[in-house]
């Protein structure tokens, strides 16, 4: 018995030494106060600082002043976080309420031994190890739930370095509800953000740069996606909710971070919309104007603010005359007609020519109020009475 105890004690001591060694190894380097451009093997920033020498970026080290919030740390978000970490971003704030699962292993970043851990915590430990200079903050909750949404608002407003608002929000979520929630938050706080998405069939994706009031917000129009020509009605979905490929996700994350870096470090042109069709390697780009009748009241408010700003700071634009194609004769009476979806609007036809389409169209009158009566005008019953009535049914 006592022999067993002492051998176990010895085993514990042995393991403790191993843990200490691993912990030591886990700290590959100390923090670096100032990014150096010195070219030597031990400088993790030499290749990034070289962007200045190459004349691409004026002040690379300013990246350390920025805070980026990433909402959704899945197939796109985790890779996005890793890229920004390796680039030496000042601070990353991660939001996700999911856990790592073995079913995620067809994507990049997470490793099998992390299964069961929360995605934000697993990501933090990997990222902190890659670059100890980056500050991390993690939030493990669903942002569409009221109190969590309020907490996210607070975080986006004060989570930046020096308690400032964050500099950029990157949406890497996989559902409409969370996108609308991020949209609402960014319109409210007047924060610039990027929306990103990969189709459920894994062969297309997009990124969209949204500046409240200046470009279309997420609910200004039905979401714009890449038309891959795969008829959605024929898609086999039995037993699965979504397919995914590490390739498509990696490409979208690359496009997302590339444009985020261009915006933050002020080089090149930041795209408003980039689509990706994996089936024919097609990358449509376009501009999206805000909708003056947008459903989101804060969006409309931001648009008005921007118009006031524009009036004070007019932008001189070179307007290119659009060439109208006119066919002199049309002996055969050929005209363009809508496809199988019934009426296709002029705008939709233009989009489809560019390889894009809306996920659906706002119907002018989907349900006629005359067909189905609406709820009665206030009939005097108060909410408590209605609640009690429902409960007693």
């Amino acid at each position, binding site marked *: 018995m006592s022999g067993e105890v002492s051998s176990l004690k010895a085993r514990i001591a042995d393991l403790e030494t191993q843990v200490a060694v691993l912990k030591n190894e886990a700290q590959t380097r100390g923090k670096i106060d100032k990014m150096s451009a010195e070219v030597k093997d031990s400088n993790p920033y030499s290749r990034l600082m070289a962007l200045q020498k190459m004349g691409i970026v004026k002040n690379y080290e300013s990246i350390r002043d920025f805070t980026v919030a990433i909402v959704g740390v899945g197939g796109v978000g985790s890779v996005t976080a890793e890229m920004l970490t390796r680039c030496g971003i000042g601070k990353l704030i991660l939001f996700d*309420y*999911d856990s790592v699962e073995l079913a995620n292993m067809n994507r990049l970043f997470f490793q099998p031994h992390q299964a069961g851990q929360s995605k934000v915590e697993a990501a933090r430990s990997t990222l902190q190890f890659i670059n100890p200079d980056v500050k991390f903050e993690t939030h493990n909750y669903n*942002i*569409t*739930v*009221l109190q969590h*949404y309020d907490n996210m608002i607070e975080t986006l407003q004060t989570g930046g370095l020096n308690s400032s608002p964050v500099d950029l929000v990157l949406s890497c979520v996989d*559902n*409409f*509800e969370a996108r*609308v*929630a991020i949209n*609402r938050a960014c319109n409210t706080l007047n924060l610039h953000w990027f929306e990103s998405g990969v189709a*459920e069939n894994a062969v297309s994706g997009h990124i969209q740069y949204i500046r409240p009031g200046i470009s279309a917000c997420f*609910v200004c129009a*039905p979401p714009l996606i890449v038309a891959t020509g795969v008829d959605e009605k024929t898609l086999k*979905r039995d*037993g*699965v*909710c979504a397919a995914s490929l590490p390739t498509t996700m990696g490409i979208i994350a690359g496009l997302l971070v590339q444009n985020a870096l261009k915006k933050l470090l002020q080089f090149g042109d930041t795209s408003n919309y980039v689509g990706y069709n994996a089936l024919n390697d097609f990358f449509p780009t376009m501009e999206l104007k805000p909708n003056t009748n947008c*459903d*989101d009241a804060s969006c409309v408010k931001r648009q008005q603010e921007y118009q006031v700003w524009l009036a004070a700071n007019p932008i001189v634009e070179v307007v290119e005359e659009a060439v109208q194609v006119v066919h002199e004769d049309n002996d055969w009476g050929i005209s363009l007609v809508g496809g199988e979806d019934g009426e296709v609007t002029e705008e939709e036809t233009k989009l489809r020519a560019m390889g894009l389409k809306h*996920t*659906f169209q*706002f*119907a002018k009158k*989907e*349900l006629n*109020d005359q*067909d*189905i*009566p*609406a*709820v*009665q005008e*206030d009939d005097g*019953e*108060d*909410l408590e009475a*209605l*609640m009690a*009535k*429902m*409960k007693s*049914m």
Partner: protein
Amino acid sequence: MVDEATRKTLSGIPLLKTKSGPKDDPKLWVQRLKEEYQALIKYVETNKTAGNDWFRLESNKEGTRWFGKCWHVQDMLKYEFEIEFDIPVTYPTTAPEIALPELDGKTAKMYRGGKICLTDHFKPLWSKNVPKFGIAHAMALGLGPWLAVEIPEMIAKGVVTYQEKKAD
């Protein structure tokens, strides 16, 4: 877009009028909640009359969290499931995400936490009908058809089995 069967279901549920969510003006939200309850009461009454009573719902007093029961009858046996969902901060622009937590992990047509998978047909229909659709519509056009397809399949696979109702 709306087929005959859907139109028939819809004809039994009054449409809502007030576009307001839990983060908006509290007065408007109370108005919206009253409309939600009116529509739900009418829908349950319609179901009862048609001999097709299949769910009950109630909410906390703020109307932000909903819970209740739904049931599916097959071979004279009544299978009952707990329902729960939160009203999202983006409601009514986005539909509520109805969850049946006890079925989590038993079918692929579910997201984490037992939220039923509704993307294809229902969500575009909802988006086109903001703010006229409410919780009653989400039940009738979302959960109803989902149960009708998924529960028989889960019973056939043996992942859902009949449980004698416990005495209250």
